[in-house]
């Protein structure tokens, strides 16, 4: 049993895995940003579920939901030659956005996808590292009796 919200997050992850994003190695797209990577693995992309608001009864027998799916892109300084860590996140932000917006229904799972807020954070290891985390609001519909379809 898998909720439609998780199906959506997994569909987005698959969308980013194949074909491989530019500069992303094997396993460079994961479902969780925590404890998954070492500095040499960067850049990477993590796709995971965020919050979800109250469902709306748009039709009799159906519920409309909006789930936040978080896409975190982490990179290190020089990931893009001569650029800062934050700037090195930018090409993957552009590429993942384009890929998601070219398939906004995710094969029929979603009604619509739009970009929400963005958080940018920086830190320092032996080189500076940074991430850009994008909230995507994904609208989807389920029957009133199941979260799966």
């Amino acid at each position, binding site marked *: 049993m898998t909720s439609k919200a998780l199906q959506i997050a997994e569909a987005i992850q698959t969308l980013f895995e194949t074909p491989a994003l530019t500069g992303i190695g094997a396993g460079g797209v994961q479902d969780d940003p*925590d*404890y998954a*990577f*070492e500095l040499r693995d960067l850049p990477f992309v993590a796709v995971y579920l965020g919050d979800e608001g109250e469902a709306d009864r748009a039709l009799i027998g159906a519920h409309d939901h909006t789930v936040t799916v978080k896409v975190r892109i*982490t990179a290190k300084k020089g990931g893009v030659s001569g650029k800062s860590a934050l700037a090195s996140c930018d090409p993957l932000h552009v590429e993942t956005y384009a890929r998601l917006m070219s398939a906004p229904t995710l094969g029929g799972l979603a009604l619509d996808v739009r970009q929400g807020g963005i958080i940018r954070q920086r830190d320092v*290891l*032996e080189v500076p*590292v940074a991430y850009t985390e994008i909230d995507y609001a994904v609208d989807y519909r389920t029957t009133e009796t199941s979260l799966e379809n």
Partner: protein
Amino acid sequence: MSAFATLQQRTNAAVMAKLSDAATLDGVAVVGKFLDDSAMAFNGIYGDKPIFELDGIDGVDHRNKTLAIGTESYIVRECKPNNRNRSTLLTLELA
């Protein structure tokens, strides 16, 4: 110099000779200890926090100089007195 101070100086020199790491700062040999503790960023990215503890205080701003140690080169990003002015901490970034 008192007998104690002389002994302290000799002891320190002996310890540094034994424990220090060979390094150069902009091509000039320096004496100090390389520390490369493991660190983590963002609750999940593993890496290191390289620091070179330069023996003594020379009053020079070493920022942006290149510290070479072994096969690695680092850029000095921060330079500050340490250990009650007995050493200088150089915070490093992998070049």
